[in-house]
């Protein structure tokens, strides 16, 4: 019961606290305007290069942008607490770490989903992309799976911010890695083999493939394997993140580095 309270109430409080800094002045340019502009940039590049169609770039880049809130918000729940010198208080509580951090992850997943869907909708409207009405419910679900997967990576990144000071830089580097390796703008088949192999072990890759197939008329059952792979990658990173958190927390206590900014 206590764990459930920590999961839900702790997560909700953390989400509300996030809006202390994620005000409209930051949210609108960062999470609404930028994803739309990234979609337009690559759609125009694709048109000029004669590669892919607008739908390909709308889905790839909208889902890519789900990574921004998922990576940064998870990082801020740990790195931000450290900078505000409140992480020590959080970690001295007897609360179990699993509900504590997973509770904070749930609203982040919702945020990532919203950002990606705003991107998809804006891309569809601005570029006159047609996605069959019947495909939308399945696409909504695939975007949830992709956001979960990205949040898993965000948790691992958040754990690293217990040791690494440059959380914002690190998050941007990861975002760039996802952009290049996950088939966001180039189909996995057109990427060099080693890059495609790396992409298979990153969030987004399978989610983007599944969403593109659904938009092309496939049913949810036929992309079940891709969705499972996407969730599997996310769970892998989430477990890695929790293990890293445990290890780095112990290290921080032992070396007295928890509050070192």
């Amino acid at each position, binding site marked *: 019961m206590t764990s459930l309270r920590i999961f839900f109430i702790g997560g909700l409080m953390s989400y509300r606290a996030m809006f202390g800094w994620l005000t409209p002045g930051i949210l609108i340019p*960062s999470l609404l305007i*930028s994803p739309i*502009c*990234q979609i337009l940039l*690559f759609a125009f590049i694709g048109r000029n290069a004669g590669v892919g169609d607008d739908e390909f770039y709308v889905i790839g880049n909208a889902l890519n942008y789900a990574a921004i809130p998922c990576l940064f918000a998870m990082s801020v729940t740990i790195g931000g607490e450290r900078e505000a010198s409140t992480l020590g208080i959080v970690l001295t509580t007897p609360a179990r770490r699993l509900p504590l951090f997973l509770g904070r992850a749930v609203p982040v997943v919702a945020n990532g989903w919203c950002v990606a869907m705003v991107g998809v909708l804006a891309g569809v409207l601005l570029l006159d992309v047609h996605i069959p009405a019947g495909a939308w419910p399945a696409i909504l679900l695939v975007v949830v799976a992709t956001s979960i997967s990205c949040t898993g990576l965000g948790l691992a990144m958040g754990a690293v911010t217990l040791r690494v000071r440059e959380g914002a830089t690190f998050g941007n580097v990861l975002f*760039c890695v996802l952009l290049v390796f996950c088939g966001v*703008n180039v189909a996995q088949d057109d990427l060099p083999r080693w890059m495609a192999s790396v992409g298979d072990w990153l969030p987004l890759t399978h989610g983007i493939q599944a969403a593109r197939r659904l938009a092309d008329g496939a049913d949810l059952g036929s992309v079940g394997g891709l969705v499972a792979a996407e969730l599997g990658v996310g769970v892998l990173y989430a477990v890695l993140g929790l293990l890293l958190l445990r290890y780095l927390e112990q290290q921080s206590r032992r070396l007295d580095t928890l509050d070192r900014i």
Partner: protein
Amino acid sequence: MSALLHQQWTCYKLQLKVLSTSAFEGFLAVLFPLMFATAALLVYRVRNDPEAMQYAGLGAAVMGMWTAQGVIASSLLTRERWAGTLELVVAAPVGLGRILVPTTMAMSTIGLYCVVATLAWERWVFDLRLEVASWPLFVAAVLMTALTLALVGYFLAVTAVRYRYSWALGAALEYPGWILCGFLIPVATLPVWVQPLSWAIPTTWGMAAVRSAADGGSPWADLAMCAATGAAYAVLAAWLGRRLADSARRHATLALT
């Protein structure tokens, strides 16, 4: 004159040291556009058209200059405000422009590093050997683009000072700049109503001059337009800077965070 040059050089040198040792403003300012350039080149490479790769390679090399300027210039004065040094900057016995321009010039220098890094990256990773008909003109066009971008940065710095989250505004300007300046997409292929916006940015003319120099054409007309639009931004920024400083002093809002 010598005192002015000494002040400009000292300010430039110090700011360049600060920027180049910062992971976010130095390392990331180079890496971020480089990765986007990589993504764009991967798209262009699918068709394996040498002409398209030459086009994209030139644009990708210059696009990093926009990133190096945009985010940091937009938040330049806000950062001074956060650090509690904005009063010192405004109260200094030299005009605001004489402090801001060497700072934005330092950012343009990071942008020049972006150009060199991207050219090396294109050759190393994509085996892309750009054909440049006239290297002196190419270098002149890149330098003129860097110089005028510093003036755009000066304009952004004084314009965005009243926006509390100016860094977010700067970050949001990144993609529009990449779209509008013709780095990876010809300006002529953009919607007609957007094209005048492109013409109002000196970098558009700078990029056109870079392409002309590489193709063996004459870049002088584009360079003249680049210089003229850059000068317009400088004049506007100087006027706005004076107005903003006067207003902040009158309303005692300089130190408000």
